[in-house]
């Protein structure tokens, strides 16, 4: 080492780098004292500064030397605040070395100093025009490194010309292609499409493979944004790829890497093809299939070299080919072959390959063609979960198990995941908990299994069980009366354990509070024993859990009058009545009072059993999506089509009651909102709706995650909902909730909530109906709201909507206000659709078909055939049709699998009879929807609206 240091030192001595390089060497070889380094650097900086400021003009060589030193100092980690001008001067030198250092300094140290950019751009312009390939290369590399908008403005028009000019050198073409790509990425609006695009596509045929490599990247990015314009690239890419994969390993000479012909170019071409569906031209398609088969065949051939470089390069191409096969998702044969190949890799000695095989199989699992083939590897994957040393590989194994899970193997996979959870790394526990919870719910045939699984989750990894998970188990137990008794019994038994997790106490408290009566007949779980058991955990719990338990106690007062005195004693004790925590104290006081003054009737009403929760997207799934990023999870959901989730449910938060005291509602009580103090006079739980605000105030993921504010999705959610409420819009500052009732004269209650602690000023909501909509819809706000909304306050407004004639667009609610000095302007589409004015009509089979025939004019019928976007569940479909507003006519269609509906659209001017028929095809996962109404536009609109729901 020492001799090496010395030689470097001597070598550079003549160039005047000595001091600095010695320093760098020191920092490499010895642990040099930091202060000495700083001292030495400061001295050097002062020296350079004086040289730059000196009277004597520096020659190019010295200037380069000092700029290079500055750059070196910067790269050692010190700030540089001068020398930019000198660097820019170097750009106009005619010597390569000087120019190169100048450009390097700019690329590494550029900041958007506008004056300098102008000078730099000028120098770049000269170099681009110089026709000297070296200088052009330097200039292009500088643009590609900096890629600022100013540069895009200056050169986006110029570079395409350089790229396609006939006399441009190959190496310049390569740089120009990627330079243009960079500018397109930063400022797509500044890169004009034009004649050059077709010539760029033909670069795929270029003789120089380096040019093809660079051009493919450019074309891929352009094709993503402008698929039509670059469609011709598909056949060119296929033929190029075909020439590469069928070439002998020596044909491509320079581009053969460890016996693999042009691996990187192959990968890029396969990626380009992933921008498009399978080629339509049968010849091209056949050629591509041949290529993919050749690549799969090569994987089976004995390796041409034992070097890992060979197998890596070969497999890089193979994995990309598999990605393309999965992307096309149309050749069952290739998909199954890909799956078998990956299956071999699952047991490969290279960790990298095992990892990638697990990852790639995850996507294969979601293709209907290869799902079964993937499932055959279940034992290997479970084994990977147990034996892999790298946590990231185990993580992939968990992902794959999750992806391959279906009804047939769910019990095994859930059991394996649970047992892995006991020893799993802390970093992935929460995710496993979410996955187990989702699978258990999704594939539960028997809900007792589901309850057992979730309680096991809490036992094994209680700390990682997020609120969403235990809220969900409660929702499910409440919604399914067949499991309530079992759940009560099981939590009761689980609570017997001397040490149990607080989450179990929460679930136990809630469930016994609701359904403790179902097991109270057994003397081993009599009311008093239940109460004593819960109360024995009380002092160990945190405040939110204690609050929940207090609610359980008051529910017990209603369920079991015999324990009332005991509970009253507890509530009356100083530790409750004078508790330092205001929430606990308030509950104790009010519950005690309620138990004393209220008659049994009132108690029974106020403390009535919780009504079923509206079905909606599982909040756990939302949480997992949030954790993992949407792409991974949705893919799985979309393609497996087994999601037991009802999109109609809308985004209501779980509890359906305003009164925190009437129920131990988890969301309202435990998030510490304080927004809804217990109010004995609160409406009974069944009144519903009003409780929205309480929950929405929280930032809990369960409420927030599934909502994309103002998005089309959100809008679509409301189409199949008759009456009810939902969140229209929210952001950091405010949210807007509505309840509605619509029938001919629709009335919508809109609640605006200020989530901040600051006033909103000039708060003005206005209803906007477009010109097109105007004659068909009459909408008006009944009275203006107060322009000032205090922090934390909510205001209500009523909007009346009248349907004059059929319409397609929806009115828009625009809200403007000032908040903390800034002007806010928010628009949200009101979910008012034509079907809201539906009145269901029941009719017999005979009548239906008679009317159906009457509406046989081709203009009256609109039909749509479409692929199912959601699981094809009969009950869900029925609910959607009813929610859409029409009557669901049973036993009308001769085919019991079909759905028919009928109704009348009421508008002010006319009434329009509507008949609909939905024919599902489970095998093809398709629907055919037919609508017949007396008015074409109505058929059309209803068909659009309803098609989007399945």
């Amino acid at each position, binding site marked *: 080492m020492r001799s090496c240091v010395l030689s470097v030192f001597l070598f550079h001595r003549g160039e005047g780098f000595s001091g600095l390089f010695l320093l760098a*060497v020191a920092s490499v070889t010895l642990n040099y004292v930091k202060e000495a380094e700083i001292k030495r650097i400061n001295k050097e900086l002062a020296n350079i500064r004086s040289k730059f400021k000196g009277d004597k003009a520096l020659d190019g060589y010295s200037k380069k030397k000092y700029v290079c030193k500055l750059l070196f100092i910067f790269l050692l980690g010190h700030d540089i605040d001068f020398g930019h001008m000198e660097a820019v001067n170097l750009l106009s030198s005619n010597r390569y070395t000087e120019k190169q250092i100048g450009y390097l300094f700019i690329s590494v140290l550029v900041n958007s100093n506008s004056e300098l950019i102008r000078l730099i751009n000028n120098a770049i312009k000269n170099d681009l025009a110089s026709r000297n390939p070296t200088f052009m290369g330097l200039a292009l590399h500088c643009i590609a490194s900096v890629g600022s908008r100013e540069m895009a403005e200056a050169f986006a028009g110029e570079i395409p010309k350089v790229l396609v000019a006939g006399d441009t050198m190959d190496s310049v073409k390569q740089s120009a292609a990627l330079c243009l790509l960079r500018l397109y990425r930063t400022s797509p609006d500044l890169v004009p499409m034009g004649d050059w695009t077709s010539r760029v596509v033909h670069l795929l045929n270029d003789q120089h493979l380096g040019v093809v490599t660079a051009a493919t990247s450019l074309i891929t990015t352009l094709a993503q944004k402008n698929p039509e314009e670059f469609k011709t690239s598909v056949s060119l890419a296929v033929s190029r790829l075909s020439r590469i994969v069928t070439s002998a390993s020596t044909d491509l000479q320079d581009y053969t890497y460890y016996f693999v012909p042009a691996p990187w170019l192959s990968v890029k071409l396969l990626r380009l093809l992933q921008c498009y569906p399978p080629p339509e031209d049968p010849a091209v398609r056949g050629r591509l299939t041949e290529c993919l088969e050749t690549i799969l065949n090569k994987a089976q051939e004995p390796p041409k070299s034992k070097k890992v470089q060979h197998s890596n390069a070969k497999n890089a191409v193979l994995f990309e080919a598999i990605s393309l096969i999965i992307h096309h998702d149309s050749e069952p044969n290739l998909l199954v072959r890909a799956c078998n190949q990956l299956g071999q890799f699952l047991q490969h000695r290279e960790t990298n390959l095992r990892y990638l095989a697990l990852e790639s199989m995850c996507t294969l699992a979601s293709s209907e063609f290869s799902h079964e083939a993937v499932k055959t590897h279940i034992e290997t994957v479970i084994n990977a979960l147990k034996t892999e040393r790298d946590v990231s590989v185990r993580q992939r194994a968990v992902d794959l198990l999750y992806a391959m899970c279906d009804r047939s193997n769910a019990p095994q996979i859930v059991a394996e995941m649970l047992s892995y959870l006991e020893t799993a790394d802390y970093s992935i526990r929460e995710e496993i908990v979410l996955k187990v919870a989702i699978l258990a719910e999704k594939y539960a045939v028997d809900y007792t299994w589901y309850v057992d699984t979730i309680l096991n989750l809490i036992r094994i990894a209680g700390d990682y069980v997020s609120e969403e998970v235990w809220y969900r188990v409660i929702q499910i137990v409440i919604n399914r009366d067949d499991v309530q008794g079992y759940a009560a019994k099981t939590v009761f038994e689980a609570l017997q354990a001397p040490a149990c997790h607080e989450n179990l106490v929460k679930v136990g408290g809630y469930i016994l509070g609701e359904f403790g009566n179902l097991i109270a007949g057994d003397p081993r779980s009599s009311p008093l024993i239940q109460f004593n058991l819960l109360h024995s955990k009380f002092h160990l719990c945190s405040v939110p859990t204690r609050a929940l338990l207090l609610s359980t106690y008051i529910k017990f007062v209603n369920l079991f009058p015999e324990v009332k005195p005991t509970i009253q004693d507890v509530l009356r004790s100083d530790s409750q009545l004078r508790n330092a925590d205001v929430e606990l104290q308030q509950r104790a006081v009010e519950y005690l009072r309620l138990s004393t003054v209220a008659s049994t009737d009132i108690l029974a009403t106020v403390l009535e059993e919780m009504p079923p929760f509206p079905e909606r997207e599982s909040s756990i799934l939302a949480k997992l999506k949030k954790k993992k990023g949407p792409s991974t999870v949705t893919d799985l959901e979309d393609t497996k089509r087994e999601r037991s989730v009802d999109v109609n449910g809308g985004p209501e938060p779980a509890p359906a009651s305003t009164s925190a005291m009437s129920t131990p509602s988890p969301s309202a009580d435990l998030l510490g909102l304080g927004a809804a103090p217990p109010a004995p006079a609160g409406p009974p739980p069944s009144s519903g709706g009003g409780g929205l605000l309480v929950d929405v105030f929280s930032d809990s993921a369960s409420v927030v995650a599934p909502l994309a504010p103002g998005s089309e999705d959100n809008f679509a959610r409301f189409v199949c909902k008759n009456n009810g409420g939902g969140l229209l819009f929210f952001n950091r500052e405010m949210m807007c909730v509505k309840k509605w009732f619509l029938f001919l004269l629709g009335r919508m209650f809109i609640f605006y909530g200020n989530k901040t602690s600051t006033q909103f000023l000039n708060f003005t909501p206005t209803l906007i109906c477009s010109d097109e909509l105007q004659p068909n819809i009459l909408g008006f706000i009944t009275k203006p709201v107060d322009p000032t909304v205090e922090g934390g306050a909510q205001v209500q407004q009523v909007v009346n909507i009248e349907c004059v004639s059929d319409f397609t667009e929806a009115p828009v609610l625009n809200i403007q206000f000032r908040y903390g000095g800034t002007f806010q302007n928010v628009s949200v589409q009101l979910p008012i659709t034509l079907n809201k004015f539906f009145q269901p009509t029941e009719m017999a089979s005979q009548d239906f078909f008679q009317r159906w025939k009457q509406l046989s004019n081709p203009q009256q019928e609109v039909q749509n055939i479409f692929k199912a976007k959601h699981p094809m569940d009969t009950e869900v479909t029925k609910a959607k049709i009813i929610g859409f507003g029409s009557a669901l006519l049973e036993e009308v269609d001769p085919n019991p699998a079909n759905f028919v509906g009928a109704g009348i659209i009421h508008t002010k001017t006319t009434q329009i009879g509507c008949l609909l028929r939905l024919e599902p095809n489970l095998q093809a996962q398709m629907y055919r929807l037919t609508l017949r109404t007396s008015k074409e536009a109505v058929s059309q609109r209803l068909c659009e609206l309803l098609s989007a729901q399945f």
Partner: protein
Amino acid sequence: MRLKRLGELCKRREGLEIRFILIQNRAGKTRLAKWYMQFDDDEKQKLIEEVHAVVTVRDAKHTNFVEFRNFKIIYRRYAGLYFCICVDVNDNNLAYLEAIHNFVEVLNEYFHNVCELDLVFNFYKVYTVVDEMFLAGEIRETSQTKVLKQLLMLQSLE
């Protein structure tokens, strides 16, 4: 249907590119940093430290890939140096792993048995090598022969 799926895929595939290339030694000293995305100086420093922290704890039994924020790092260790490339999670791991090796072979040839000090003292040449092989976050040239020929030509201009 096809088109819609295509649209979704394109969205997912958008902006596939190298985000940065880092060469660090075991002690965490940066020997090369090439950024293909806009980061401010503090952010760069943070990234450098985080990459060092995630990469150095891994041993030979681990994969050469680590998830990193919303991206992934593909890395390879050569003696005391870690060569790391940060790419999009959907990108091809093995292609970048071998791109690193290809790059190292070029450096080795160009500097005649490259060592850490070569990278320190000839930093400006290393940047040139990087720009020949990677540009705008994409692989520009993969032929070692072509890259070395170009480098020798440039050297002759010095």
